[in-house]
């Protein structure tokens, strides 16, 4: 008899953060304070990110059934009528399936819809290629007028939720499971278009996003024991992108490694390369992510190990980068 495969549940957003709040609880609390917040979901109103809100404000939750595109456009109609809709979507189906509703109904119209795109990257990878969400950074970054953020833990998620609440245009949240281990001790202070610095370093800089920042931070700690100083930047904003921080890293450390749980074609690494090239910054760049091919299907941890998306894999990439002339 085999073991039960425990790789996924709908628990995203259940993890408690400081003050006993989870993302779901924080959303419900925002709903208590703001009657203009509504939740739209395609058969996800029972998922923890939405469930507490739904229990407290059932009249402001609209579950559209398994019809993602309709849910997006319904949310846009609510936003055009004075509401701030939070649309909970599965990462594999949000940007990819609803790119056009995001572009035409939210971004072109500049309406304040918030897309909570949860279970992104390889979170649901066990279920097959259909459930891999590794194209969403490329898609969303190409949409004019869309803000793209990627919280890396519940604390940064809360910071981004609150700080973008009154942004006039749409915001896409790329969330992994929503209950990652804590990375920030308290709620970090985030500013629009700026990365968060997690570690100082002079030898190289890692710029990572989402889950990858956890591995990057661990890798930097491992290398510190050998006297190698690696700066770590958390790309919580993917659009607008923190060009100043990228250029500063290029000038100060001369070597940059990007890490992401996303296709290397069109992701964070591509965006950083673009900034460096446009500004004539001569830093050495290494892009680490998922290869541009159909990925294997397995438990997320097995896939992370296979593709080197681990602290050890990142240490290896850094060593190669430091050796490069």
């Amino acid at each position, binding site marked *: 008899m085999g073991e039960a495969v425990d790789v996924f549940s709908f628990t995203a957003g259940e993890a408690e953060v400081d003050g006993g709040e989870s993302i779901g609880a924080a959303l419900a609390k925002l709903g208590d304070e703001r009657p203009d917040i509504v939740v739209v979901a395609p058969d996800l109103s029972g998922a923890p990110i939405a469930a507490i809100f739904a229990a407290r404000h059932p009249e402001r939750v609209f579950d559209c059934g398994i019809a993602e595109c309709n849910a997006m456009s*319904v949310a846009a109609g609510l936003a055009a009528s004075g509401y701030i809709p939070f649309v909970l979507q599965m990462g594999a189906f949000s940007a990819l399936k609803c790119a056009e509703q995001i572009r035409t109904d939210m971004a*072109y119209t500049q309406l304040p819809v918030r897309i909570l795109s949860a279970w992104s990257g390889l979170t649901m990878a066990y279920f097959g290629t259909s459930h891999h969400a590794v194209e969403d950074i490329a898609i969303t970054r190409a949409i004019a007028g869309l803000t793209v953020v990627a919280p890396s833990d519940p604390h940064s998620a809360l910071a981004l939720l609150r700080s973008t609440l009154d942004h006039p245009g749409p915001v896409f949240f790329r969330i992994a499971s929503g209950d990652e281990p804590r990375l920030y001790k308290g709620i970090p202070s985030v500013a629009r278009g700026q990365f968060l610095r997690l570690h100082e370093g002079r030898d190289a800089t890692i710029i990572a996003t989402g889950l990858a920042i956890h591995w990057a931070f661990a890798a930097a700690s491992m290398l510190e024991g050998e006297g190698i100083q690696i700066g770590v930047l958390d790309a919580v904003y993917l659009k607008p992108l923190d060009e100043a921080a990228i250029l500063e890293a290029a000038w100060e450390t001369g070597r940059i490694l990007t890490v992401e749980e996303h296709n290397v074609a069109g992701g964070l690494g591509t965006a950083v390369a673009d900034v460096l090239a446009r500004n004539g910054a001569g830093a050495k760049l290494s892009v680490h992510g998922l290869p541009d091919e159909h990925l294997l299907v397995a438990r997320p941890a097995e896939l992370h190990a296979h593709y080197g998306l681990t602290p050890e894999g990142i240490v290896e990439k850094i060593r190669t980068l430091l050796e490069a002339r």
Partner: protein
Amino acid sequence: MNGLHLNDVLDRNRPAEPEALRRGAEELRLAIIDLIDGAGLGHYSSTFSIAELLTVLYRRTMRLKQGDPAWPDRDRFLLGKGHAAVGLWPLLAELDYFPADWLSDFGKLGAPLTDHPNMRTTPGVDFSSGSLGHNLSVGIGMALAARLQKRDYRTFVILGDGELHEGQVWEAAMAASHFKLGNLVAIVDANGSCATGSTSSVMNIEPVAGRFAAFGWAASDIDGHDIAAIIKAFDTLPDPGMSVPTCIVARTLKGKGVSFMEETPRKWHLGFLGSEDRARAPRRKSGKGSEHGGSGRRFFIHRGRG
């Protein structure tokens, strides 16, 4: 133009005479020709098919406020088939939603009036469109918002019949009855034509009313050029507080009112009359007892050559 003053509330089902509305639809077609004349390219035939529907909606049926396109209690109007936006511009100008001289810049670089409606450039456009299949869903959002705000505005959405090929329309059709949106009215411009051929020969949509009825709507067919039938259908809409959405399937002619466009409607989906045809147009046919029982002139542009 309509003898009203800024901030006058235009109530629902205003006592506009059928004959005046019929004439209004003819004038709207002329205004559309003028607008496209200035722009150099435009959607004639699929706008002509809804000239009567638009005229009755804006001059009689919808509750609006002169000069105040953002009035919270206004009835909403969404043009799912956004390529017919040129038919909206003269009606919105008449409501003083923007200066009438904007009309002369239609289609020009950076001009607010565009081929498809843009809510960010044109006051009075309740939502942008251009990609078929989205606006019925957007209308659901607006109808849900009315429920939350305890407002009794209606949301009207005009869809093309070819637009019914889009799957999202049926996601929305399912949701509208599920959410009990008696304040939502879908009008299908059943002009029977899409780019490749007759709509149902490309992909069958019939029976349209039967399909909407099966999705939980109150649905019926009318002649979409018969002013009296349109008035009757709109005047007898259920109270917005009711729980069943309404679908009116308007049977129309693509290119209605222009002989050669009626004959080859697909050719005139997107086109330009050109100076020769334009110089001969419009020609109005006088006579009594038109096919829809009107008593006055019947608008018709005849091809001057060939």
